[in-house]
């Protein structure tokens, strides 16, 4: 739906409801997803999904209701009546805030004209080209090429409105044979055939260097974490640990914790060149640049509007991306500076083990190598690790050039060289 269509639909809904306050969100996703394994396409789907969410407020009571049929006027009318009817049965919530009523600037940083042109046949031909590259190398390839074309619109009865189009492109590929595996990706708001083929070649190269891994006895070791591993770790750490209210109330690793976490800066910015995002949150707040760690020093964390008002702070909604500053070293330079260490391509199955210390566990996967005297010498068997993100950030020795990554959210991460990373046991 275009801006005018969304504006008309939202205005019509807001006019219909006079009983109380209403916030309206419209989301639309067209997703082309082509999945492949063994150098053949296994699943290929087009997913069209539209969602209309109505959030009604009567005094200090609030409920929401979502439907997926935007063309059914009767259903929309019934839904408005229903969401207010539900609202009347709710107990009061003193923390409810009125609709923000913001007229939001939407510069469409995350809209890509080239991604908009990608169609089913294009996706099929790019995946087929990648599969041919795998076949030529006699290596199995498995992965996903996904193009999401999205719009998001927001309106509220306090006069707030926003509409923005965006794209999300994801190509990730695992190259494997019976002796080892390698992995690579391309993430961002656009994708070209050469990005697909470059990532494919990189995965194949990683696989060829991962043949017949040998055991490295797990112990605290210097590691170089490639950007994917850094992104996987920080995205889950942010989710679990970076809330201002939890920190203020003693329920966070950041409660009574003022020690500097190394020297890197962690921030969010919808206008980031490498992985731009939407300019507003789902509840109608403008997303701007927010700094969470400034040269290792904790700044104000994610703060709800209620908590911001109560503590006289600025509201800081959950961000749409995370960016970690890097030192600008390339990965090769980090490797050359390492006498004895492990190079990690990516992590897998990261889960918290201790919220108080931001402790996590996880596995290495698809390309783990020994570094000796500045050279990658051989692959090693994957390992489990148990470590604290607070300690990992403090132990960063050097960092590299940030790139777009992120399994579940938009991340822009550099490779990190970290001292005494705690490997704890062997995998397969």
């Amino acid at each position, binding site marked *: 739906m275009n801006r005018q269509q969304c504006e008309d639909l939202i205005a019509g809904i807001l006019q219909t409801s006079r009983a109380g306050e209403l916030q309206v969100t419209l989301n639309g996703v067209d*997703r082309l997803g*082509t999945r492949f*394994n063994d150098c*053949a*396409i*296994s*699943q*290929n*789907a*087009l997913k*069209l*999904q*539209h969602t209309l969410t109505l959030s009604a407020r009567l005094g200090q009571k*609030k*409920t*929401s*209701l*979502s*439907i*997926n*049929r935007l063309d059914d006027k009767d259903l929309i009318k019934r839904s408005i009546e229903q969401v207010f009817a*539900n609202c009347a*049965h*709710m*107990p009061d*919530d*003193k*923390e409810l805030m009125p609709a923000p009523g913001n007229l939001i600037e939407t510069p469409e940083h995350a809209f890509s004209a080239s991604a908009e042109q990608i169609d*089913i*046949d294009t996706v*099929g*031909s790019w*995946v087929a080209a990648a*599969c041919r590259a795998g076949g030529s190398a006699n290596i*199995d390839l*498995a992965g*996903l090429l996904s193009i999401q074309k999205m719009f998001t619109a927001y309106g509220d009865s306090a006069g707030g409105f926003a509409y923005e189009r965006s794209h999300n492109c994801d190509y*990730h590929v*695992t190259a*494997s044979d019976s002796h080892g595996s390698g992995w690579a990706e391309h993430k961002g708001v656009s994708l070209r055939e050469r990005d697909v083929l470059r990532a494919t070649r990189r995965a194949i190269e990683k696989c060829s260097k991962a043949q017949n891994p040998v055991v490295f006895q797990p112990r605290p070791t210097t590691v170089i974490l490639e950007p994917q591993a850094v992104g996987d770790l920080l995205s889950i750490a942010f989710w679990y640990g970076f809330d201002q209210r939890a920190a203020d109330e*003693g*329920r966070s690793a950041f409660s009574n914790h003022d020690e500097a976490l190394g020297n890197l800066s962690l921030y969010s910015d919808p206008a980031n060149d490498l992985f731009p995002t939407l300019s507003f949150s789902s509840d109608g707040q403008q997303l701007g640049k927010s700094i969470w760690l400034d040269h290792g020093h904790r700044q104000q964390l994610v703060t709800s509007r209620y908590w911001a008002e109560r503590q006289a702070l600025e509201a800081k909604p959950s961000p749409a991306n995370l960016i970690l500053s890097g030192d600008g070293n390339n990965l090769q330079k980090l490797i050359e500076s390492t006498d004895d260490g492990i190079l990690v391509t990516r992590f897998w*199955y*990261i*889960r918290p*083990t*201790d*919220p108080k210390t931001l*402790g996590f*566990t*996880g*596995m290495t*996967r698809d390309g783990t190598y020994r570094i000796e005297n500045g050279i990658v010498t051989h692959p090693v068997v994957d390992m*489990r690790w*148990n470590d604290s993100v607070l300690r990992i950030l403090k132990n960063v020795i050097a960092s590299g050039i940030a790139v777009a990554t992120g399994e579940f959210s938009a991340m822009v991460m550099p490779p990190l060289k970290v001292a005494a990373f705690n490997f*704890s*046991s*062997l*995998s*397969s």
Partner: protein
Amino acid sequence: MFDLLKQACEIATREGCRFADARYLDIRKQRIMSRDQALSGCNDSEDSGFGVRVLYQGAWGFASSPNYQAAEVKTVVALAMQIARASARALREDGVNWAPEAALKLNFQSSCERDPFAVSLEEKADLLVSANEIMLQNESVKRAQGYLMFKRVQRWYVNTEGSELHSDVTSSESVIWAIAVGNDDFQERNWKAPSSNRGFDAYDKAEFLLQAERVAAQAEEKLSARISPEGEFDIVTDSENLSLTIHESVGHATELDRVMGYEVSMAGASFVTRDKQGEFQYGSEQVTLMADNTLEHGLATQGFDDDGVPGQRWEIVKDGVFQAYSTGREFAHYIDEQRSRGCSRADHWSSIPIVRIPNLLLMPGKQPLSPDELIADVKHGLYFEGMDSFSIDQWRLNFQFGGNAVWEIKNGKKAGMLKAALYQSRTPTFWNACEATCDANHWQAHGVMNCGKGDPMQIAQMTHGAAPTLFRNIRVCRGRDS
């Protein structure tokens, strides 16, 4: 409701598709969240639409739409065929080998004695807020939370083989938890009301209040618990804790699509290669794991799967020996089986079915054995209760699990509580260390509501069950420095 689905299949047949199926889903959900004395949210959703899958020119195509009308059905079939043509650019050498299945007409309805969508919001709010108030009576508890989630999925399925299937499944889930805050620590303790294919009749306010008092007291106790020791110990797991271990180390490991490399790029593969079938000593003789997609109230009990195959019951591990995989129709031929086990499920009308873990149950011990008697046989060990940190490698071999509450066992009795305890093992090592499991009187089922698999990820539900079980000499480590 079947007419347009049949029309989709007729068009696909006419256009030369070797196979096609069409599903229409009507999904209703409600999620109610509580924070201390208030409800922090009540979100209802209604979602309906249909998907058409075609096997055309040797390749799969799938398309879907929320607009269930005759003209749109034609468009979606044409789109699915266009996608299949794009898929044909990279065909599998051995093609698609689709296991036969007789045409079936079936109407399945899950048990729902009290429709959760007909229960007043006031009653639901009272259940959650009353539990929170009980938890907050404990002075150490600074935050009490909970949620209720209800889902009703009505599904109509038609395929070109003549099957016409309908299911109507209602499921319920609820969790309450307390966060206790001390001078320099905070700890969470929760209670999961067993998730199942049942209605609001699954919940009892008196039970919520009882559990609220218990978890609040145990959250407080965790604050002063000592950090877990490390080393090799005997461990006893309660049924909820072991349910997740069953899920991760057996359920996923024995999905045949993983074994065949279809999930390599995301969820991973499996160490349970085909040569192990019928021979591999997965566990000790105490270990029999039964798959049962006919289990009453089981979350994977839906009458039939999204390949049109009825729910079945089979042994995955019998007396410790690996017997059989979970399969869908596309995968049965890889192990020379003539029929799918009926495990192919999609999480939405716009999702493609993939092989999912069935309801998977560790069968109880045959000899009378209570948890106290089980613990009495442990000189120094740990007792793990509830689910906490969980992580397993992409081969389903190296795993590490925590417990929501853990106690030390000394001289056959539960002693003080421990915190940050984790057990770490390899799947066959762990299951072969199983010495005993309690009898059927102590067996419980637990639901998994958020099983992620696929790429893009799909979320599925299934039930696991176990009785308290003893494992000897398992490595214990900790998530926090001492």
